[in-house]
């Protein structure tokens, strides 16, 4: 079965089940079907059938979707790591004879241009919806995977279709994958483990989960994701597993180890929390050749999965047999078609045995009763003191005995044991190691490193390790003799080198080590000076900080999260400020009919509650409106019409585009002339982390700001939030730090970007609105996720109200819309907090039909609510987050009508006490 047919079949079979999920987004199988089909159509338009399409991206749901699209297309899916050096990128494109490169980031797009190959940027394509009739590709190659050739030139493995269905079936059966299970997508797409993650999951009808990259490293993000959400199944290399936090490891229900030989230490750790599987398979055998569940540690790698047989080959006699020890030869349909690139002699690993394709793995195994045990690489066998020594075996043994990761690395004739330092000296460790091993297995020396590096594949990167050890010093940047001197002292005490910016406690040091360091440094710098510096360090020794203190300087404080964000924002803001005048000057604006010239309004958020009302008030003015929406589809207008009961003709002057279209217009410096902008489109979610807000609504806001500059807008009204603060101050880390929730922080950041428009002569108003109500019948659905009305409704059901601090600030949506439109009509009132009326506890009680005796402390109320089973938990969390602050401090009554009373349908006059201030 062809890969594309296999996928089509999968999508049809599971239909409405959730297929793919990442933070805040999910796709059903049906949705993925439509989407990947449309994208595959797009690939087919740009790339000849049978040619390779390189997909450059990883660690995002978007990249997974493009990978699926490439698999369904007529081209050959060839994933490539985005992290390659420039030269390697060009080599790879050349070796692959790529017909098209799909880039998930702009940097790769630039590289692809340089390499002279046609390229698509995923952001430009967006999510097309048109369904195209598609033809089967007919290529014998299902996908190609880059692997490192021995010459350093990239080499491709062409994998055929023959082993795919067996792979899917075996994974489902042996790993016991069931519909609805959550499977982690960890592997880089350029590594073929991703193929088994993706296909294994989808075939079984389970859900593939891509963590959000919200930490500096992907591994850190995954670790955090797992600690928080857990997963049913993860496919990881032992090296990656060793690097997860314990809290993350505990929440993996089933772990399939792959990519590297599994050592006892990792097995012991994993079996405490998870069902443990060990998989073995080279890229050359369609990802997975054998798989076994382990309940106790053995080097067993199971029996071949369907469609494969195993033979052992004795290189000395040339015999093949079905039992014994020797090089593993894989025979079957799933053996890859061959290499592309690389040296000719490398092709010799692919042969034909009895008319079937066979692959000579280079792995030493024992085959007994059909079960395989892994012994190591043939080339990891060394002869020492007359004995044949298997380094992989010794490595696994040592890592179990020492209970930490070790690597045995060959440097010429020398065998070096590389490990992370734990405070023991080289001599002490060597003594232990020698007591366990015969002389011919013992390493010649020990080298300590801070971390054992991983390659993109998630395997231990022995080449990098070899280079690092060969270079000797572990790469300390210590040209400064004084730094060198202090580092030497630390090295003497700890028995290994540390990073000058790392606390010795984090490097495995103890308070004993610290005082030893202090005594030694006192001999150099004098007792008093050193003691004073140590006191100033608060007895947490970091080499660089120590030197600063020794010279009387203050230690640089670690940045707070608000400071980090602010620093990013400042950088971006500087770039934006530089760009806006250029946009305004260089953009060509379309000429318009004389009567409409200079009257167009750009409006966002029309499908939202407030934006809809703004459009409702805008339509009768007869001004042309450019609606920018996330979908970019005219459906927005159909829905608006149904909501407000307008005629189709009322929308004659309204045009809808997507954010992607807007970005293209801005980037191409060509678009319609604008008069004003009302920016109401924003994802209201108090729980979303700031990073997601930054990547979503904030990024959209920056785009709208750029559009305003490019298309000559004279005014810009931004709908901000009262929770961003009562006072308008310049954006600073302190101002950001003062705002509690990420949603309000993101609004404050957006205000900073919006205000940059003042530089190009655009009048800017930011309106910080309170809770906005005034819902009419067609608006009721917007109340579904509203935390405050949800809270009142819940209070009514529970017959209990939490004690709210201060007042609840409320706006009327029509008043607010008028204010926004007045601003773009040139009748600006200046940036302001917009609160039409505040409500105090007594009034809320009235609206909920409760009395003062029904009031509970918030903590108790939330406990009650959680226990009641009546509350929607995410909404409850939003309430808790929103009530976290101090509440609104001043009462207000700018409008006379009872906004909440109308909404709740309660009698007009609530008991009031001093609300009229």
């Amino acid at each position, binding site marked *: 079965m062809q890969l594309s047919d296999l996928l089509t079949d999968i999508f049809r079979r599971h239909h409405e089940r959730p297929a793919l999920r990442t933070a805040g987004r999910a796709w059903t199988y049906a949705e993925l079907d439509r989407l990947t089909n449309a994208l595959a159509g797009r690939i087919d338009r740009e790339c000849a059938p049978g040619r390779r399409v390189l997909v450059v991206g990883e660690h995002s749901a978007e990249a997974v979707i493009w990978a699926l699209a490439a698999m369904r297309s007529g081209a050959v899916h060839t994933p490539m790591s985005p992290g390659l050096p420039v030269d390697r990128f060009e080599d790879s494109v050349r070796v692959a004879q790529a017909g098209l490169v799909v880039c998930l980031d702009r940097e790769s797009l630039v590289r692809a241009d340089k390499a002279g190959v046609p390229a698509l940027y995923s952001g430009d394509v967006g999510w097309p919806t048109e369904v195209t009739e598609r033809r089967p590709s007919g290529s014998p190659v299902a996908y190609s995977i880059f692997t490192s050739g021995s010459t350093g030139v990239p080499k491709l493995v062409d994998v055929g279709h023959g082993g795919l269905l067996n792979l899917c079936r075996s994974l489902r059966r042996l790993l016991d994958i069931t519909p609805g299970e959550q499977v982690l997508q960890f592997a880089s797409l350029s590594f073929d483990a991703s193929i088994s993650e993706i296909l294994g999951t989808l075939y079984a009808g389970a859900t593939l989960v891509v963590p959000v990259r919200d930490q500096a490293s992907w591994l850190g993000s995954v670790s955090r994701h797992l600690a928080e959400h857990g997963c049913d199944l993860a496919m990881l290399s032992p090296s990656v597993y060793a690097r997860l936090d314990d809290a993350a490891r505990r929440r993996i229900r089933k772990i399939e180890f792959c990519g590297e030989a599994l050592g006892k230490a990792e097995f012991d750790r994993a079996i*405490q929390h998870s069902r443990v599987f060990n998989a073995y398979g080279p890229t050359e055998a369609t990802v997975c050749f054998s798989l076994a569940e382990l309940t*106790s540690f053995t080097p067993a790698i199971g029996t071949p999965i369907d469609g494969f047989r195993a033979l052992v080959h004795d290189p000395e006699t040339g015999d093949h047999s079905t039992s014994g020890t020797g090089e593993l030869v894989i025979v079957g349909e799933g053996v890859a078609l061959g290499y592309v690139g690389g040296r000719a002699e490398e092709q010799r690993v692919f042969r034909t045995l009895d008319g079937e394709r066979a692959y000579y793995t280079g792995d030493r195994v024992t085959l007994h009763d059909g079960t395989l045990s892994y012994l190591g690489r043939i080339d990891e066998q060394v002869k020492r003191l007359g004995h044949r020594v298997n380094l992989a075996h010794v490595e696994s043994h040592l890592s179990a005995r020492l209970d930490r990761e070790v690597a045995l690395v060959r440097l010429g004739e020398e065998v070096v044991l590389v490990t992370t330092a734990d405070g023991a000296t080289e001599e002490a460790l060597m003594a232990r190691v020698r007591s366990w091993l015969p002389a011919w297995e013992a390493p010649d020396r020990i080298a300590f490193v801070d971390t054992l590096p991983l390659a993109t594949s998630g395997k231990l990167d022995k080449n990098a390790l070899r280079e690092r050890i060969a270079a000797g010093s572990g790469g300390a940047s210590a040209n400064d003799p004084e730094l060198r001197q202090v580092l030497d002292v630390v090295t003497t005490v700890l028995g290994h080198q540390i990073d000058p910016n790392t606390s010795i406690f984090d490097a495995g040091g*103890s*308070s004993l080590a610290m*005082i*030893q360091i*202090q005594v030694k440094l006192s001999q150099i710098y004098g007792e008093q000076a050193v*003691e004073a510096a140590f*006191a100033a360090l608060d*007895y947490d020794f970091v080499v660089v900080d120590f030197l600063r203190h020794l010279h009387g300087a203050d230690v640089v404080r670690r940045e707070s999260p608000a400071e980090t964000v602010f620093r990013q924002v400042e950088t971006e803001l500087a770039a934006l400020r530089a760009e806006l005048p250029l946009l305004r000057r260089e953009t060509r604006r379309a000429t318009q009919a004389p009567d409409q010239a200079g009257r167009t309004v750009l409006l966002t958020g029309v499908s939202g509650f407030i934006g809809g009302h703004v459009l409702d008030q805008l339509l009768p003015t007869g001004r042309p409106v450019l609606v920018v929406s996330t979908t970019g589809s005219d459906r927005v207008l159909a829905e608006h019409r149904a909501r407000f009961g307008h005629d189709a003709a009322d929308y004659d002057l309204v045009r809808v585009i997507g954010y992607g279209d807007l970005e293209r217009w801005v980037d191409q410096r060509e678009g319609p002339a604008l008069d004003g902008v009302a920016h109401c489109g924003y994802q209201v979610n108090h729980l979303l982390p700031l990073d997601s807000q930054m990547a979503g609504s904030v990024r959209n806001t920056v785009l709208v700001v750029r559009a305003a500059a490019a298309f000559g807008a004279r005014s810009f009204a931004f709908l901000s939030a009262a929770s961003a603060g009562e006072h308008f101050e310049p954006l600073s880390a302190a101002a950001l730090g003062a705002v509690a929730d990420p949603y309000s922080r993101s609004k404050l950041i957006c205000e900073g970007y919006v205000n940059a428009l003042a530089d190009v002569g655009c009048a800017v108003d930011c309106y910080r609105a309170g809770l906005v109500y005034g819902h009419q019948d067609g608006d009721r659905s917007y109340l579904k996720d509203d935390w405050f009305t949800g809270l009142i409704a819940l209070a009514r059901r529970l017959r209990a109200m939490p004690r709210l601090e201060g007042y609840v600030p409320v706006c009327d949506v029509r008043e607010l819309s008028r204010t926004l439109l007045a601003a773009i009509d040139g009748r600006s009132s200046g940036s302001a907090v917009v609160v039409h009326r505040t409500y105090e506890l007594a009034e809320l009680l009235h609206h909920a039909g409760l009395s003062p005796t029904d009031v509970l402390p918030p903590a108790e109320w939330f406990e009650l609510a959680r226990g009641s089973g009546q509350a929607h938990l995410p909404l409850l969390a939003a309430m808790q987050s929103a009530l976290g602050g101090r509440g609104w401090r001043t009462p207000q009554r700018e409008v006379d009508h009872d906004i909440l009373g109308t909404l709740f349908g309660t009698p007009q006059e609530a008991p009031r006490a001093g609300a009229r201030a």
Partner: protein
Amino acid sequence: MRYSLRQDIAVEPVIAGWYGWSYLLPPQTLARFVRNRFTSIIDSYLSDPQVHATAVRQRKMHGGPWVHAYEHYDRIASWYQAAAPQRERLGELFDAIRQVEEEILPRYHGECLDPVYQELPSALAGRLEVFYGRDNRTADYRFIEPLMYASEYYDETWQQVRFGPVTRDAREFALTTPMLEYTPDQLLVDVPLNSPLLDLIFRGGLTEAELADVTARFGLTDQRAELFASYFEPAPQPTGTATGDVLEYVGHACVFARHDGTTFLVDPVLSYGGYPGGAEHRFTFADLPERIDYLLITHNHQDHMLFETLIRIRHRVGTVLIPKSSNASLVDPGLGGILRRLGFSHVVEVDDLDTLDCGSAQVVALPFLGEHGDLRIRSKTGWLIRFGERSVLFAADSTNIAPTMYAKVAEVIGRVDTVFIGMESIGAAASWIYGPLYGTPLDRRTDQSRRLNGSNFQQAKDIVDALDPDEVYVYAMGLEPWLGVVMAIDYDENHPAIVDSDLLVKHVRDKGRTADRLQLRRTLRR
């Protein structure tokens, strides 16, 4: 003429050469501490005494692994050499435990555990029970503790006491320095800690013949006998015994109460007398009544279960009430077994919400959460004592990590009038006490996340709000200088424990009730 021990002579318990406390008595925990903590202290000291001298000088380093008597290099070196056979014997036990924990048990993942008994190392064979933990897959074990005490690894000849004068309130941290004779007025005597000879000495009023007999039985002659004699003075005239009801805070977590003639002492830690310059009006051993009918222990930390005080008051004590501990694990050795080996004959173990009639009063054991590094430790309880109409709760260091617990407890026990609560809101990392017992050390971040914290303001406030008492007293903060012997806290006005307890006192006072942070001594009711 009759003789009594001078009020300023401390008699410090010594086990295997170290200051005696709960985890050094059971052989299995002693073996862990000797190998995992004491050996590295002495090795580092012997290789570079200057490191220890430097560390001891710095306040921030207090409580760390330092030999305070760093100037006595030769004495420590020769003691350490002489103690090698003892370390070797304990080493067998240590290795056996390691073998069970790291080699034998990890091989089992749910299958039958019977074979384990056949392969137990001889040091532990017949002295362990093995079983699966909660997940039914991870094998665990417990010691049959009486058999451990009966083994060759529990040796009363390793026990000693050290006599010596106390000259001021502040005591030096004692847990990390070998207990040797460092000054001419110190005397180290080989004697089991449960010896009736010690009761004879502490009871006082010895005749000359009795004193001579004790001296001889301690094997003291010549100059050493003279030194020993100098620790005694003519017995003071017995003073009239007070009989009135009283509730008196006497330092740290220690509270004395008398109600209708029955006497109670909670978490005994007392100070010495008879030297100039001590805090005025402090409560010393001399202030104790002849008889303590009920001694109550809240938990097995050295500042609540101080051997030095316990052996000195042993002859006065009727019944000891303690929390029941059924784990018999490394981290949670039985408190009852420890107290019995310490010479207390009448020990009663109680469990959550057990109620006992104790003379004129009623005692209820209350659940105690937290402050034990999330280890599986059951030996901890709060005590509620009902003195007639009034009830007093000793919450010790219980942390209100489960805010609803005290509300539920309140429903069961009814009104509480007075609450004593510990608020050492930022305690030491759990490894400070338990580190030597861990199989594999925790990484620093995890260790630091599991501190031995008492309640912070919010937690204490929730307790107080749930119980709604008239009086709230913050105690057990280690504020008294004599606690320095087992604690190392460096307080200033910005210390979180001080800030938190100030807030609590204010909160309670704002409600129109009585509250204070106690220090040294306070008579709360007569």
